[in-house]
C-alpha cells in the first residue's frame, strides 16, 4: 500500500507530473454493458460526470488559453500540447479526489424540527466516538489572565499564552504538555514559526523567540512593544504591529529586517495575514482596513469598512473572502476581488476566524456563534452556537487545521469544542502532515527553505507571477465629456444669486458685467486646458518633421534639441 502511494511523487499542484496509469475505472464504466441496468447506471454516471466536471474546473485553475490569435505555428503546436496536458491532469486530479481520498468530512444534520444551532456540545459528545469526545474540554487557569492560542500548520501542536506571562506548548494528539514557562511579564500574543520547534511571544517590551524546550533564542529589540504577531509561511517573514502603529517584517531565516513602516493610523491590535497571497491586513480605529506588503511603504489597499473601530478581521483560505466586524455589532463579509460587501450579518463579534472549509466563528463575551454557507453561494447563516459560563470572556477563537475542533482562548484559560464539518479531512503529506516524524519534519524544513519566496512575490493577485505585464493606458476624457462639463459649469455660474446692493450701486449694467465675469471664471479652467493641449500637440508636431518625409529620407532629417 505504501509503495502504491509513494509512486505519486510529484510535489506541486498535480500538473504535468501526474500519471493516469494508476487510476481505477469508475464503476459506471464496467457495468454499462449489462442492458437492463444500463439506463439507471447511465443516469448515475451522468450525475457523477457533472460532479467530476465541477471538480475539474477547480483543478484547471482558470480558463484555457485562446490559441486562435497565435500566428506562429510551432508555438501554437507546443501550446496546444500543453493545454491538452493540463486538461488531462485536471481530470486525473478530479478522479483522484472522487475515488482515492482516504477520509470523509464531518457533518451535522438536524432531524425533524430540530435546528443545528440549538444542538449543544454535550449532545454531540454523546453521539461521537471516545477519541473525538476527548477533544472537548475546558482548561481553567483563572490567575494567569486571558489566553491566546496558536496552532502549527498541521494542527498537531498548540502554543497558549496567558496575559500574565504563562507560555505553554501542548501536543494536541496526545494532549501532552510539552513545556510550560513563566516569563514574568505581560505576553500579548504568541505565534508559531515554520514548525513546532520555534515560537515567538510578544512580551512587554520586545518580542522573543523561544525553542520547544523553552530556551529563549532571540530577543527582537527592533520591533518594540508588539501587540500582534503573524507569521507568513511561504516567505519566512515575521510580521508585527507595535504600540506605536509601526508594522515590521523580519526574515526569520537570516534575521534581516525587510520592512519597517509607520502606518500613520495609530495604535491597533487587529492584524491578520491573508494566507492566499501573503498580504497583511490591519484594522484601524477609524474603521479602515489597510493591506500591506513588505516592499512598499504605502498600503496596497485602504478600505473603509465600518463607521467605528474595526474590532476583528478574518480571511477565508481561498483568499476571496474577508470578514470584518465593527463596534456597531455588524459583521460584514467582503469579496476581495471587487472590494464589495457581499453580506452583512447582525452579530456581535470581538474575534473572528475562518475554518479550512469556510465556516466562520464569531466570538463575543462568553458566546460563540459559528456561521456556515450551505449552498456554496457565500450566504452565511447560523450553523452552531456555544455559550460558556458567564464569567468567561472570549479572547480568541481559532480553528484547528485538519480537525473539526475550535480552540477558544478566554479569560479563564482555554477550551476546545467540536464543530463538525469545519476541518479538511484529507491532508497532503507534503503540505502539512499531522503524523509527522522528526525525520520528515527535518526534510520538510529543508525543502521549505529551498522554496522560500522572496518578499517581492507578495502581491494582491498572486497568479500574476510569470504573466506579461500589460502597459497601462491612461484614459483621457473624450471631447464630448469635456464640453458637457463646461456647459454644466456655465449653468451653475448663471444660477448664482447676487447680493442686492443699495445706494445706487445696483445698476443693471454692473449686474450684467458681474454675471459675465462669473461665467468667464467658470469657463477659464477648461479653456486653459484646451490651450495647453494645443501647445503640446503643436510642439509634438514640430519635433516630428520625420513624419512628413518619405521613409527613405527619414534618417537625414536633423533632430533639433528639444
Amino acid at each position, binding site marked *: 500500500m*505504501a*509503495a502504491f*502511494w*509513494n509512486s*505519486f*511523487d*510529484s*510535489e*506541486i499542484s*498535480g500538473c*504535468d*507530473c501526474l500519471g493516469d496509469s494508476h487510476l481505477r475505472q469508475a464503476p459506471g464504466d464496467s457495468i454499462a454493458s449489462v442492458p437492463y441496468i444500463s439506463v439507471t447506471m447511465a443516469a448515475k454516471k451522468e450525475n457523477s460526470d457533472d460532479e467530476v466536471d465541477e471538480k475539474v474546473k*477547480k*483543478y484547471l485553475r482558470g480558463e484555457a488559453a485562446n490559441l486562435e490569435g497565435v500566428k506562429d505555428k*510551432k508555438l501554437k503546436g507546443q501550446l496546444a500540447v500543453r493545454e491538452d496536458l493540463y486538461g488531462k491532469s485536471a481530470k486525473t*486530479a478530479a478522479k*483522484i479526489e472522487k475515488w482515492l*481520498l*482516504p*477520509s*470523509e468530512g*464531518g*457533518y*451535522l*444534520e438536524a*432531524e425533524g424540527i*430540530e435546528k443545528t444551532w440549538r*444542538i449543544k456540545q454535550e449532545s454531540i459528545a454523546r*453521539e*461521537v*466516538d471516545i*477519541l*473525538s469526545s476527548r477533544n472537548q474540554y475546558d482548561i481553567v487557569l483563572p490567575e494567569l489572565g486571558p489566553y491566546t492560542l496558536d496552532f502549527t500548520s498541521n494542527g498537531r501542536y498548540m502554543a497558549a499564552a496567558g496575559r500574565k506571562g504563562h507560555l505553554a506548548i501542548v501536543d494536541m494528539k496526545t494532549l501532552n504538555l510539552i513545556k510550560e514557562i513563566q516569563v514574568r511579564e505581560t505576553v500579548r500574543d504568541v505565534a508559531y514559526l515554520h514548525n513546532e520547534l520555534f515560537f515567538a511571544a510578544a512580551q512587554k517590551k520586545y518580542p522573543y523567540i523561544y525553542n520547544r524546550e523553552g530556551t529563549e533564542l532571540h530577543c527582537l529589540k527592533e520591533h518594540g512593544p508588539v501587540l500582534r504577531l503573524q507569521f507568513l509561511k*511561504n516567505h519566512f517573514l515575521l510580521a508585527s504591529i507595535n504600540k506605536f502603529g509601526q508594522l515590521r517584517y523580519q526574515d526569520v531565516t537570516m534575521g534581516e529586517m525587510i520592512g519597517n513602516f509607520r502606518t500613520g493610523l495609530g495604535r491597533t491590535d487587529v492584524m491578520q495575514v491573508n494566507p*492566499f*497571497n*501573503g498580504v497583511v491586513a490591519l484594522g484601524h480605529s477609524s474603521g479602515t482596513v489597510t493591506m500591506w506588503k513588505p516592499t512598499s511603504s504605502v498600503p496596497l489597499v485602504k478600505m473603509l469598512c465600518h463607521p467605528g473601530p474595526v474590532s476583528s478581521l478574518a480571511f477565508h483560505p481561498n483568499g476571496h473572502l474577508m470578514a470584518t466586524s465593527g463596534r456597531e455589532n455588524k459583521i460584514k463579509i467582503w469579496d476581495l476581488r471587487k472590494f464589495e460587501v457581499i453580506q452583512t450579518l447582525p452579530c456581535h463579534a470581538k474575534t473572528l476566524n475562518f475554518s*479550512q472549509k469556510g465556516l466562520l466563528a464569531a466570538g463575543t463575551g462568553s458566546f460563540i456563534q459559528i456561521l456556515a454557507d450551505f449552498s456554496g453561494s457565500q450566504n452565511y447563516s447560523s450553523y452552531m452556537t456555544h455559550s460558556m459560563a458567564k464569567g468567561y470572556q472570549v479572547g480568541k477563537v481559532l480553528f484547528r487545521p485538519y480537525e*473539526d475542533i475550535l480552540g477558544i482562548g478566554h479569560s479563564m484559560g482555554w477550551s476546545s469544542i*467540536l464543530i*463538525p464539518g469545519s*476541518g*479538511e*479531512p*484529507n*491532508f*497532503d*503529506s*507534503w*503540505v502539512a502532515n499531522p*503524523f509527522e516524524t522528526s525525520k520528515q519534519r527535518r526534510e520538510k524544513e529543508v525543502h521549505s527553505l529551498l*522554496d522560500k*519566496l*522572496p518578499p517581492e*512575490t507578495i502581491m494582491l493577485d*498572486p*497568479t500574476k*507571477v*510569470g504573466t506579461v505585464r500589460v502597459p497601462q493606458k491612461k484614459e483621457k476624457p473624450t471631447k464630448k465629456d469635456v464640453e458637457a462639463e463646461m456647459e454644466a459649469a456655465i449653468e451653475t455660474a448663471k444660477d448664482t444669486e447676487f447680493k442686492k446692493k443699495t445706494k445706487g450701486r445696483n445698476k443693471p449694467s454692473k449686474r450684467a458685467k458681474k454675471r459675465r465675469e462669473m461665467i468667464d471664471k467658470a469657463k477659464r479652467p477648461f479653456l486653459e486646458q484646451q490651450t495647453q493641449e494645443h501647445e503640446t500637440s503643436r510642439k509634438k508636431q514640430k519635433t516630428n518633421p520625420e513624419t512628413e518625409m518619405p521613409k*527613405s529620407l527619414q534618417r537625414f532629417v536633423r533632430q533639433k534639441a528639444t
Partner: protein
Amino acid sequence: MKVKVISRSTDEFTRERSQDLQRVFRNFDPTLRSQEKAVEYVRALNAAKLDKIFARPFIGAMDGHRDSIKCMAKNPNYLKAIFSGSDDGDIRLWDMASRRTVCQFPGHQGAVQGLTVSTDGSILVSCGSDCTVRLWNVSDANLADSDNLSDNSAKPQAVYVWKNAFRAVDHQWDGDLFATAGAQVDIWNHNRSQPVNTFDWGSDTTISIRFNPGEPNILATSANDRSITLYDLRMSSPARKVIMRTKTNSIAWNPMEPMNFTAANEDCNCYSYDARKLEEAKCVHKDHVSAVMDIDFSPTGREFVTGSYDRTVRIFQYNGGHSREIYHTKRMQRVFCVKYSCDASYVISGSDDTNLRLWKAKASEQLGVVLPRERKKHEYLEAVKNRYKHLPEVKRIVRHRHLPKPVYKAANLRRTMIEAERRKEQRRKAHSAPGSIVTEPVRKRRIIKEVE
C-alpha cells in the same frame, strides 16, 4: 441528529513496522497550497542554477594517435566501441568506458580518409589517400579473441586498390554494398575487388557520402563544386543536384525522418533539407563562426552535433535555428569529425590535436543508474524550468555559456557584418521603387540552383 466528526486513527496513517516505508497521503486541492506560481518560479530559478552547477560535460580524452584524426565510425551493434582513423594511416578501436585502445589496424600508407562499419557490425571498411580500400573483420568474437598479436593489431581481411585517392566511404544500411567518394562515386560489394557501379556527374571530386537510413538505395554526396547530389542505386544516373554558394563538408540523414538531411557547410551554417524538395532549405542552423566540418544526428532524430573549424562542438535541435549547447576546451584544436553515440548520451569529437574527446550530450545529466525517484525529480525540475524559461532571471541563467575569446570576438564580428548587410539591403529597398527589390529568405538565398 446525525453527526460525524473527523477522527483519524493513528494506525491507518502511520507505518506498521520500522522496515516499511513512511506513508504518504496526497490531496491535490489547490486551496491547500498558496502562491503556487511564485513557488514554481523559485523552483525554476533554483533548477536553472543547479543545472549550471552540475554542468560538467567533459568526460575524458582518448590519447594515442600520433596525427590529426580525420574520420570516425561507430559500430551499431556494440555501444562502447568507436573506430578512429588519423592522417598517418593509423586506425584504432577504442573502448569508451575505459578510454583505451582495444585494437589497432595498421596498414594504410597515407592518411585514412574514411571509415565505416557494416550494419551487422562484422566488417570495418576504411579508405585512404593511398588509393586503397581495406576491409577488416571486427565481429565481437574476433576482437575478444586473445589470439591477437601482442601489440593488439589485426590483419585486413581484404585490400582493394583502385585508380584515385578516396575521400570518404559509407556503408549501405542493411545491405551488402558500400560506396566510396573520390574523383567519382563508386559502389562496391564486399567480395569484389572492383567497384560494381560508378556514378559521375560533373568533374569535381566528391568529398563526402552518406547512405539514407530509411531507403537503402538512396545516397547523398557533396562535391567540391559546391553541390549536394542525391543518387539512387536502382537508376543508372544520378537523381537530383542542388548547387549552393559554398561547399558542403558533410551530410547527415535524420534517422527518425529519413527524408530529411542536414548539410554542414563552409559558410558556418548547417542547412536542413527535405530530399523531396531541394529548392528551399527547411531550416538554417546558425551559430558557428567558422566552417562546419562534420555533423552527426542523435539516434532520437531530435538533435544533431556539429564540429567546426573554430575549435568548438555544438549541439543543435533538429528544428532550431540556434545551438542548445557549445563545448570547447583550450586543448581542443580544429574539430574534424564528431559522432553522437548510439544511446544518445554521449558525443565524441576527433580533432587536430590527435585526441578523441568524450562529452556528455546533456551537460548536467547524472550518469550511471538513476533511481526512479531521482529520475522523477530531474524530470520535474526540467519541466518547471521549461515553464518559466522565458522570464528574464531564469533565461539569463539558462542561456549563459562561456565562450572562448576568439569565438566570442568572431561571433561579434560576424553579427556586425550581417547587420550591416541587412541594413544596406533595407536602405536599398527603401530607396527604390516598392516591389522592385525582393528579399529572399535565408533558406533560399544560399542556393544557386537545383538541377535534375
